[in-house]
């Protein structure tokens, strides 16, 4: 009995110690992982929120600038600017307009087409 006790005291039981350590690490790691994951979810959520805000702002800015371009291009604005800058611009008179007439396409002979002839089979619809 005494011998056994002596032997037991002398022997280092790594297995249970490792198991215990592993279990502790697992539980601790899981807990830390869970907390980290939660904080990541929160952090990414805030990032999503910021990006959503940024997207909305950019879309609004895009709309505003688009409207500004449209206003600057509007005939009323162009007319006003032309008058302000005293450019002497006037509408073109009919005689000043050169009209380009497109020639009527000439139909060529049927035989001169360069398309490959398709074989006529019974399956052809």
């Amino acid at each position: 009995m005494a011998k056994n006790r002596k032997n037991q005291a002398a022997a280092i039981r790594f297995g249970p110690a490792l198991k215990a350590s592993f279990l502790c690490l697992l539980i601790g790691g899981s807990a830390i992982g869970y907390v980290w994951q939660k904080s990541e979810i929160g952090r990414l959520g805030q990032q999503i929120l910021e990006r959503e805000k940024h997207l909305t702002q950019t879309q609004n800015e895009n709309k505003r600038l688009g409207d500004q371009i449209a206003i600057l291009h509007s005939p009323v604005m162009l007319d006003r600017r032309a008058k302000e800058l005293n450019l002497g611009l006037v509408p073109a008179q009919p005689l000043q307009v050169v009209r380009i007439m497109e020639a009527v396409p000439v139909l060529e002979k049927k035989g001169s087409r360069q398309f490959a002839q398709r074989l006529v089979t019974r399956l052809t619809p």
Partner: protein
Amino acid sequence: MTNKQQIRRALFLLALLLLVFAGLGAWLVNLQVLRHEELSAKAEQNTQREFWQAPRRGDILDANGNVLATSVLVKRICADPSLVGNQSAVAARVLAPLLQLNEAELAQKLTPRVTVKKNQYGRPVTNELKYVRLAARVPEETWQRVVATMTNLTFGVDEKHLTRTNRAFFRNLRQSAIFAEPDQMRVYPNGALASQVIGFPSVEESNISGHLLSQITGRDGIELAMDKQLDGVVGWRVTETDRAQRELVALRDEDVHARDGLSVVLTIDSAVQHIVEVALADALQKHTPRSITGIVMRPKTGEILAMASLPNYDPNQPNTITPETRNRVITDVFEPGSTFKIVVVSGALNSGTVKLNDEFNCEHGHFAFAGKILHDHDSQGILKTWEIIEHSSNIGAAKIGIKLGEQGLYDYAWNYGFGRKTGIPLPGEARGFLYPVKQWSKVSIAQIPMGHGVAVTRLQILFAMAAIANHGWLMRPMLVSRLQARDGGVVQRYLPERVRQVIGEKADVDIIEALKTVPTKNGTAPDAAMKNYVVAGKTGTAQKAEGGVYVSGKFVSSFIGFFPADNPELCISVVMDEPKEGYYGGKICGPVFRDIAERCASYLNIPPDAKLMTNNPSALIVENAARKL
């Protein structure tokens, strides 16, 4: 002995514990089962937040995509007076110039107040005021300046030496006391251009599930007529927030984006509209009428390119909107005068009652009929049908009307669309008056052909003329070309619609030949003639009736015409109400017509009539060899 006592004590303790656990169990059952609905709703109310998102109202665009009306996102500046505390004067001093408000009034708004309200049991409950509105429709840039100003605000105290509570008070005052809510504002970049067609809106607050949401609602014009299409669908988000009221995205439950309203693309061309408005403004200055209207449309499709009525208003400035600035093109009716002769003459030509060269005795300006004397402005003897149009003879038109017959005249007038709405998609259109034959007096058959005894809108008479320009086919007025989503995708396209053929091709060619004589040297509107285009048209000068009596010196003058006469591209109407300098339609409205027509022809690149072109450059012919088939 000891054991017994110990056992007794243990049993007592056990019983006590059981009782406690039973009590706890009962309490849990009460909370989790019996009051589950109530408490879960309360818990949700405490944690969940609903955010409502107003949709952006659709734009109104012209035919070329130019913006006529758009919605701009702005801010509504609000405050929580309970966070301002005794610093309302300081906050008001810095905010008043930014928000362009009176400093004293602003300080009053920012001062904390307690309101007393009765709760559901009728007991008075005191509540600290936590929400006041300071300014509406504030641009984003101004809001950013407000934020910067509040962040850098100092109150003349060394905050490092303050207690934690006082430090929190100043922090909250800077960060949370002033806040902004999203809002939108309707903007009309071109000001008064086509204002009566576009209309104007009002901002209304609607209560959606207890949330106040400001919405823009149309009040007139396209804004009202297409309100449903322009209006979008409200979006919402059900989510949870942390203590600092920041949203916890991971706990977002419902997220439905607002659907923006559709953009309405009109047939109006803002360049043509501008041309018309400038010409009308010049004429308004020159002839000082009570009002002047102008319309430009394509007779082949019924598309309205411009519609203007002066005086008009700027929808950006609601205080300029008065009853005088209404859209008279569709709301006002008037006796058309000689322009109505196109109805009787074209009808008579179509029915074969008269021919273009048939002759009528115009009685040298005096014709007694049914106890009344009809007059012409010039003494005319024998006139052919086309000359009746050329000289605008009332007696000649009356005689043609008598020949056509009452029912025939009524039928043609009805088929041209008089006495009923044209169907233009604008609110407030008048029907005009075209009485049924049984209500006619004996003289009606002679008066109606010269444009008396009927009341028409400016749009009706224009579309009657346009029917003549379009081979006798009456078209439905087209003002909306299509509906499109914000990305430009077409949701709905509106196509030209034929209403009916009023007169046949032969009669149409004849009446056009007659109308071509009006803007000539011998006609009533030589000033309406264009340099490079053949014009067909008709003048009108109608004495105004007030209280059933014709008033001397008050006229409605008009000219309605189209060009090129043989292949009409545009039909234009100019009508002046009570012009002061001159009153003959051909004299005062003819030049305005020509001015508009020439500028529009140049802008729209309408090919001139070859026979009128002097020094005509031969057209270039580009041969495209690659297109040979």
